[in-house]
Each structure stands twice: as structure tokens, then as C-alpha cells.
């Protein structure tokens, strides 16, 4: 067994134990399991959000796109900052509604605000369908990282299997607290790995990033402006993708749900202010991708650029460190994805759809059972259908972003109705699916998901305006 392997496994096991330990002496009811009893302060919320947002995609996808596509990858640096700006205005209001009505999940919000269980069930199902590719993305990434980092000593299937079973264990026992605690390890390791490699490789091969870019400008200048090395990812595509991903960011069921775990609306607002700092390390990931483009230009799979370059530049123990960082970077977002997918199925599909009188204990037990089901499903998919990383994520985004009009209008506009939101979501999804499956993505240069969102917004607004406003009942949410 080599040093790299020991570092990887020690980290994975230590993380899982910490995650399990996080839930000790907390009585696990749904409130504690999904939203941490609504007691998280500014630091833990920041770590948690950063933990779930910054994924293997950051390691592999962002550098892979820099390597194979060039400038279109810059959208990954930017969209988070847009999302946090938007969250400054939206999330505090959402948190208050969640607190007042004891909400745990995104469909809970739709059910309460629009007084419609079918709408909630639809939102839950779209959420779960979008989460599964995201989860698979984490697993595929994890497998790649560990396989390369251990120098093929561990096959990707084994790596995925072991780390995912451990992830499953700490989600099962500790819920969101487990995710939050493991985030600490993950955030630190990830940032160290990205900074060391991102500053290191341009320095080692070119004597600094300025000289690296100079060489790139001389040899491949088209990589540094849109549409980069692609034919279809031009300015319009990046603009529409930025709006899609910026608006869709907090519409992910797991990110949306995590908002409720904060102690107060003010914590959420202050968190929005400091979140954009977390985007800056992505710059260093780009540096790695661009350096790889010049140093090892003929890789078949761009997603491997980061790992290949580290492999050829650093000693094997450091490769082990990167592998370990990559593994926890997949485990943390996976844990929260599994947690929320399970809760959506148990609380918002089973309870809301089939058994409205199910007790909270039943829902809690079923949620935990669903953790096992979803884990197995994602494992099978990750092993059977590995795919190119970024594409999957964009498809998931297309789905969840369709919730945006329903959430924002629901919070701030009394006249938003369930009929309008329901038709908007259905039309939006139909447009996206039609465009993608007929090969029209991008459509007129724009991201298909964005086109769907635009149509969805128009339909939602039009139906709202053509419905006679009714007086809100006393327990209506929009009296906030």
C-alpha cells in the first residue's frame, strides 16, 4: 500500500466518523435531521453552503472546460456571485416563511404557499429527478479522482462504493449536522489543494501565471475570449447560462432546504454578503486547466487535465492529498443531495401524495430508508452510465430553475396563484425537453434552459394577471 492510498482512505474514514459523531446526543426527529433544529450560526452556515456548492465539479469540470473549451468556463467563476447577490434579497424572506410555518423542504414551501399538494408533489419529483444526475456527477468525479490519485491501485468502482457507503452512514445517523461538520475538513483540504496546484503549476512550468497567459496568447489566443474553442458557446450562450445558473442556484432542493437551518434571517443575509469570496479559488482552477492545455495538449478527456497535471508535477503523497480532498469534496455534496432527495420522497411524495396522515416518526423512518434506496440507485447509475461531467449538471439546472418564478412571486406577490405556477413549470420543462431532444440546444445562441425559464416566466405572469385576485385567507403566507 502506498502513501497516497493511506492518505485517501484515512481521510475518507476520518470524515465519515466525524460525520457520525456530529449527530451524537441529538434526538433525531425530522426537524433536527433535515434543518439542524434551525440553530446554525454564521460560520457553520457558511461552511455548509460552501460545502455543498463547491463540488468535484470545481476540481474537474472547471479545469476540464478551461482545457477543452477555454473562455466559456469563466461562467463557473461568475454565476455563484450572481446567485449570492440574488439570495441577499430573496432568502431572508424565505427563511421567515420557513420559520413561521415549520417548513423543511422546497415542496413544503409550495404546498404551504399555494395550498396545493399536487404542486408540491410535482416540485418534489422534478427535484429528485434533477438531484440524481447531480449525485451521479459527484460519484463519477470521485471515482476518477481516487483511481488516478492511487495510481490505479483502487478501481473507480471500489472507490465509489466504499466512500458512498460511508457517506450514507453519516447521513443516516446525523442528517444535515453530519454534512456541516464534514464540510470543515472538506473546505480546508480543497482550498489548500486548489491554491497549491493553481499557484504551483504555472510557476513551475512558466515562472508565473502572467507568463503562462502570455504564452497562451501567443499560441492559442482564441481560448481566452468567447466562444473559446467551441462553436456554439458564444457571448449570448454565456449570458443566458449565467442567468440560468445564477437564478437556478438556490432552486436546488438541497440548497433551498439548507436555508432553513440558519438561526435567523439576518444570518442568511450576512452569509450572502460573504459567500462571493468563496468564488475566488476557482480562478486557480482555471490556471491549472490552461497550464495543462500548454503542457499536455493531447488528452482525450479534458476532465482529467487537473489530475494528469498534478500527477506529472508533484510527488505521489501530494497526489494522495489531492485524491483525498477530491473524495471528501464529492462526499459532502453527495450527503446533502441524498438527505434532501430522501426527505422529498418521504415527506412530499409519500406523505403528501399517498398518506397525508402519516406521523412524523413514519416520515422520518421512511426518509432514512430512502437514503439507502437513493444511494443504491445513484451507485448503479454512476458505475453503469458515466458521462461527461458538466453536461449532466446543466441538464439538472434546466429542471430546477423552473421553480424560480413560483418561489420569487410566491414570496413577494400576493397575486401569484397555484394554477399560474403549475402551468409555468409544466410549459417551462416541456420547452426545455423539446429543445434538447430535437437538437436545438443552444436555441438562437441561448441556453435551452434559459429559453424554458423565459417562457415559464411569461406564462406564469400572464396566468396570474388574467386570474381575478382573491382575498388571501387568514393563514396565507403572503402576509409577510
Amino acid at each position, binding site marked *: 500500500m502506498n502513501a497516497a492510498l493511506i492518505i485517501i482512505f484515512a481521510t475518507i474514514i476520518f470524515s465519515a466518523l466525524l460525520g457520525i459523531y456530529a449527530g451524537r446526543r441529538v434526538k433525531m426527529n425530522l426537524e433536527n435531521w433535515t434543518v439542524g433544529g434551525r440553530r446554525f450560526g454564521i460560520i457553520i452556515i457558511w461552511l455548509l453552503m460552501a460545502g455543498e456548492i463547491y463540488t468535484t465539479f470545481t476540481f474537474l469540470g472547471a479545469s476540464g472546460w478551461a482545457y477543452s473549451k477555454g*473562455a466559456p468556463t469563466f461562467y463557473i467563476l461568475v454565476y455563484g*456571485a450572481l446567485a449570492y447577490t440574488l439570495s441577499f*434579497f430573496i432568502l431572508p424572506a424565505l427563511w421567515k416563511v420557513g420559520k413561521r410555518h415549520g417548513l423543511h423542504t422546497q415542496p413544503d414551501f409550495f404546498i404551504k404557499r399555494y395550498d396545493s399538494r399536487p404542486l408540491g408533489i410535482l416540485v418534489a419529483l422534478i427535484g429528485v429527478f434533477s438531484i440524481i444526475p447531480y449525485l451521479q456527477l459527484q460519484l463519477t468525479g470521485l471515482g476518477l479522482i481516487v483511481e488516478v490519485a492511487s495510481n490505479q491501485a483502487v478501481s473507480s468502482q471500489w472507490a465509489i462504493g466504499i466512500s458512498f457507503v460511508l457517506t450514507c452512514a453519516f447521513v443516516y445517523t446525523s442528517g444535515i449536522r453530519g454534512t456541516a461538520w464534514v464540510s470543515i475538513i472538506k473546505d480546508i483540504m480543497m482550498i489548500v489543494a486548489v491554491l497549491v496546484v493553481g499557484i504551483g503549476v504555472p510557476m513551475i512550468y512558466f515562472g508565473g501565471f502572467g507568463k503562462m497567459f502570455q504564452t497562451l496568447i501567443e499560441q492559442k489566443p482564441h481560448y481566452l*475570449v468567447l466562444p473559446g474553442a467551441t462553436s456554439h458557446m458564444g*457571448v449570448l450562450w454565456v449570458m443566458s447560462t449565467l442567468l440560468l445558473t445564477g437564478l437556478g442556484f438556490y432552486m436546488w432542493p438541497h440548497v433551498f432546504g439548507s436555508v432553513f437551518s440558519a438561526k435567523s434571517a439576518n444570518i442568511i443575509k450576512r452569509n450572502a454578503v460573504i459567500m462571493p469570496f468563496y468564488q475566488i479559488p476557482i480562478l486557480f482552477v482555471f490556471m491549472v486547466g490552461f497550464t495543462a492545455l500548454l503542457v499536455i495538449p493531447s488528452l482525450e478527456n479534458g476532465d482529467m487535465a487537473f489530475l494528469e497535471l498534478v500527477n506529472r508535477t508533484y510527488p505521489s503523497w501530494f497526489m494522495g492529498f489531492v485524491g483525498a480532498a477530491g473524495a471528501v469534496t464529492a462526499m459532502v455534496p453527495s450527503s446533502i443531495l441524498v438527505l434532501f432527495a430522501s426527505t422529498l420522497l418521504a415527506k412530499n411524495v409519500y406523505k403528501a401524495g399517498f398518506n397525508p396522515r402519516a406521523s412524523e416518526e413514519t416520515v422520518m423512518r421512511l426518509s432514512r430508508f430512502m437514503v439507502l434506496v437513493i444511494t443504491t440507485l445513484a451507485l448503479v447509475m454512476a458505475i453503469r452510465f458515466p458521462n461527461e461531467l458538466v453536461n449532466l449538471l446543466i441538464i439538472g439546472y434546466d429542471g430546477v430553475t423552473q421553480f424560480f418564478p413560483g418561489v420569487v412571486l410566491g414570496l413577494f406577490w400576493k397575486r401569484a396563484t397555484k394554477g399560474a405556477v403549475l402551468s409555468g413549470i409544466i410549459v417551462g420543462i416541456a420547452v426545455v425537453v423539446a429543445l434538447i431532444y430535437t437538437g436545438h440546444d443552444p436555441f438562437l445562441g441561448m441556453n435551452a434552459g434559459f429559453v424554458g425559464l423565459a417562457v415559464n416566466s411569461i406564462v406564469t405572469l400572464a396566468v396570474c394577471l388574467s386570474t381575478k385576485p382573491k382575498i388571501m385567507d387568514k393563514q396565507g403566507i403572503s402576509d409577510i
Partner: protein
Amino acid sequence: MQKGTRIALILGAIPFITMVFALPLVNRIEPVILGLPFLLFWLLAWVVLTPFILMAAYFLEKKYNLPEKGEDK
């Protein structure tokens, strides 16, 4: 809408204007600033400025809006 909220919203529009809607104007390599091609430099600069813009929005909103009932500080 209270004055503080209005000011905050105007500040909040800045990242969207600079990083999304200004893109057609900044899609270029020259001038290279701090070793970065212009497009990357521009985007990075605004990502770094965004938390400061939001900080200003936070404090101005607090200054001009009436304190909410039962809000922690």
C-alpha cells in the same frame, strides 16, 4: 418599498450589469491587466467587488429601513 430596500436593489443590480449584460463589450484579450487577459480580469474584478457591494447594501439598508419587529441585530 422602503428607501433602504430601494438603494440595496440598485446596488444589487451592479453585478448583473457588469458581469452579464456588459459581456459583449468586454469579450477581448487586450489590454492584459495584472497578467490576466481582459475578459478574465474584468469578470474576476467584479466577483471580488461583489461582496463589498453587498456589504454596502447591507449597511445602507439597515440605516434607511425602519428596524423590523423582533429582528436580532
